[in-house]
């Protein structure tokens, strides 16, 4: 995506339910467009309206939500608001409709009674964006060609070791997980030297956060792809573990997939964990 757009709502259609994300920049013109889609959005499906970062709802938009609410009732479904903050709660109360809409904490909570809450698994749809992102990041930022090896499930007592690792939590409404990128010292020094255009011979404070930045870039690239598919992964800040042959455990309990990579300068691996 390389152009500026100004959408003030997004609609994600899933099997049996639809998520409508409203942005803080709700305006009258977009409301008119939205109004024409209300019937299509809310017919015969559960509707979840994500109000994250929404301070208030203009009257025209409230009217659209009420129409959707009535449509869902007509079809024996429901409309629920999620991520409702204090300001929005006050706004709904002011308008006298604070008891009209059902409110849930998040998407998983909203869909719990329907059995439709999305379940995520460590499948190729989830893993491939991380694999592609790793190759892309190393190529663009360090001019290094990385090749993914055979992906495998980590055994329960298998211990992976590295000299420097970047770790980032995967947080969403419906699942949690983590991504770890771990390098032997030799590979990391070559990658960083290539990224910064200077020769580094030891891991010190000047370059240690490079592992975090690489993790951040890989996570960011994968997140764009996964969120376009409705995963709803939130922003996170990476941390770095440094120390000769340190061992790693995932941030969450669940199956762990290991993706080994090779480069002309040595090996490294990426671990992806998803909680059940």
């Amino acid at each position, binding site marked *: 995506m390389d152009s*500026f757009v100004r959408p003030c709502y997004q609609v994600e259609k899933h099997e049996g339910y639809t998520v409508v994300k409203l942005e803080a920049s709700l305006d009258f013109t977009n409301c008119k467009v939205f109004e024409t889609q209300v019937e299509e959005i809310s017919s015969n499906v559960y509707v979840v309206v994500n109000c994250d970062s929404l301070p208030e709802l203009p009257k025209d938009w409230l009217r659209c939500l009420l129409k959707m609410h009535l449509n869902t009732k007509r079809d024996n479904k429901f409309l629920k608001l999620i991520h409702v903050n204090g300001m929005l709660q006050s706004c709904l109360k002011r308008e006298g409709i604070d008891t009209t809409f059902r409110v849930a904490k998040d998407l998983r909570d909203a869909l719990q009674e329907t059995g439709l809450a999305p379940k995520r698994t460590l499948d190729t749809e989830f893993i491939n964006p991380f694999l592609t992102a790793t190759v892309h990041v190393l190529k663009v930022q360090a001019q290094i060609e990385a090749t993914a090896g055979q992906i495998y499930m980590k055994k329960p007592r298998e211990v992976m070791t590295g000299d420097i690792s970047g770790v980032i939590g995967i947080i969403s409404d419906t699942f949690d997980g983590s991504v770890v990128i771990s390098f032997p010292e030799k590979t990391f020094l070559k990658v960083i030297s290539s990224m910064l255009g200077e020769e580094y011979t030891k891991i010190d404070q000047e370059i240690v956060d490079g592992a*975090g930045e690489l993790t951040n870039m890989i996570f960011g690239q994968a997140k764009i792809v996964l969120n376009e598919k409705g995963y709803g992964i939130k922003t996170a*800040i990476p941390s770095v573990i440094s120390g000769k042959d340190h061992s790693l455990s995932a941030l969450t309990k669940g199956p762990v997939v290991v993706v080994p990579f090779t480069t002309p300068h040595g090996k490294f691996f990426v671990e992806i964990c998803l909680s059940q």
Partner: protein
Amino acid sequence: MFDPKTKVLVVDDMLTMRKIVTKILKELGFSDIHEAQDGQEAWDKCQTGGFGLIISDWNMPNCTGLEFLRRIRADQKLAKTPFLLVTAEAEQSQVAEAIKCGVDQYVVKPFSKDALKVKLESTYKKVSVRLAA
């Protein structure tokens, strides 16, 4: 394109990323490059800095790039400073929020020298139009 004599402020909590941006800027001919490690430090430097271009990371502790941008645009003296956001996550809703706050351009990590150059040229064109208006 920007005059290479332009005084540039590079803002990022990651030292490595500041080094990458600084390296590319030097390759593009810039020499007067200063650094800050979060929005708060950058804001303090802007009070006396006289920067002609700000390149800031988005996701930082203390004061994010977006909060820093809001403060710059709300300040009468600094409001017209060209501002380029660097981000690892260019989702539509985030981009819309950045435009609302008055960003001139954004660049998605990872990026090459050529990609940053294109974004800088685009920023320069936008700012030229703004200043001429």
